[in-house]
């Protein structure tokens, strides 16, 4: 089939797609977007979490045929998605993250000698900045899924309790951090948002 769907705010097409292949496969292998990670492939670990029509889902359990004409946001488009949300939507119609930009997307660390941050802080969403600042990233494999899930939590609950955070992120497994720094990061992002209001 020819698959047409929206990825990170831009319409994309892929040809010769088998309807039964997973959305995760389409994103990683056909679109060249490796941010969503492929781990358990059975909806257990959450490392492939993306937003499908706004709600977080495990991309490994979604068939390609199911995303026809629907909207997907991956971690590569998260910063732009968060910015649009803050600005109240896409007024110009030229929003979203192009596939080329998404493929090249990377978080450049601060300059090692000067300590100056590069251009990247402006390109990160609040939750991404908080993960870096709180030291919530170790090996990084679970991070994209956690970012998408945590961003959605803060979207619907700006001041989550620790219990809220634990429950909302229970579908995202991390084998490195012990979760404490991840909880710190979500608390930090929530606190910064409250300060800014």
């Amino acid at each position: 089939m020819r698959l047409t769907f929206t990825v990170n705010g831009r319409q994309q097409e892929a040809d010769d797609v088998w309807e039964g292949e997973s959305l995760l496969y389409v994103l990683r292998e056909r679109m060249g977007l490796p941010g969503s990670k492929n781990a358990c492939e059975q909806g257990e670990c959450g490392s492939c979490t993306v937003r499908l029509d706004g709600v977080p889902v495990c991309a490994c359990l979604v068939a390609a045929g199911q995303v026809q004409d629907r909207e997907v946001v991956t971690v590569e488009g998260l910063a732009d998605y968060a910015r649009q949300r803050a600005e109240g939507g896409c007024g110009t119609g030229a929003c979203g993250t192009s596939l080329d930009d998404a493929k090249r997307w990377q978080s450049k660390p601060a300059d090692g000698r000067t300590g100056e941050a590069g251009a990247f802080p402006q390109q990160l969403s609040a939750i991404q900045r908080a993960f870096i600042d709180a030291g919530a990233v170790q090996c990084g494999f679970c991070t994209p899924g956690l970012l998408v899930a945590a961003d959605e939590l803060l979207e619907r609950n700006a001041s989550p309790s620790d219990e809220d955070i634990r429950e909302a992120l229970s579908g995202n497994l991390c084998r490195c951090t012990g979760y404490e720094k991840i909880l710190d990061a979500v608390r930090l992002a929530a606190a910064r948002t409250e300060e800014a209001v």
Partner: protein
Amino acid sequence: MREFGYQRVFDVPGAVALLGTDPEARFLGGGTNLVDLMKAGVERPALLVDVTELPLGRIEATADGGLRIGATVTNSDLAADPQVRRHYPALAQAVLAGASGQLRNMATIGGNLLQRTRCGYFADLTKPCNKRVPGSGCPAIEGEHHNHAILGASEHCVAVHPSDMGVALTAFDAVVSYETADGPGELPLAEFYLPVGDTPHLETALPSGALITGITLPPNPVAAVSRYRKVRERASYAFAIGSIAAALDVRDGLVREVRLAFGAVASRPWRAREAERLLTGGPASAEAFAAAADAELAAAETLPHNAYKVTLMRNLVVAVLTELTEEATR
């Protein structure tokens, strides 16, 4: 995974007709269980008929004061619905106690009823399993069975039904609606799951090719004071090792009406009718709750590693009914 076809359907008759033409076709809801089983090779459909675009996604009050829940309503939307939370709080609690946010966002209530057991032998193609391959045997009885059934099982299968939602629906006398090529039908949830017997591979009384279209909850004033309590091996995102849905109406220290259902103890959500019968009209005391639980659990048949469930369920009955008594008399 076997290669399969995929087709979206947009009307119920079309969905039923499409499935009827292909004995190897399956309906696809959220896919959170079916797709897993396909990856494991337990399910090998030739065609998936995606029912999530069918006009079955609404939750509506019925004329008599009950609730009609469409089959494609997601678990997340069911748990968030104001009518559900107000009139059937245990149902919302049960749904939220299951799976993770990502899975609840996809999973549908029709699929929830039809999900398969999480018995490890069922999903392991290298092992015998009477549910997967009739007549091949049940290694759980001699093997890993700490989370297996204590009620209603047989020598052929001791697997439990994993649904949390189904436990609350069972307590509230839910009725399942379905559509077949010959027209619509209904099944009370109490008759929906078949006894295990020597046919554990036959799980529901749904006619072949039937599509679940919705669930109807009759008006249940007692359900407004209800609770779901789930015991699991970690705080979130795990299947129950024992759970209870309970509703209670207490006046002047006497039980006027009570609903009790157990999860993770049988091949289906277990309505504790004997306990309900003993409690109705009697004192709302911890002693009475314990005696009723004991009577219900007298039929329990345990295996070496799941006998703890009898004590667990007894304690859950006493704890939750005591809490509901306090809530009702506050």
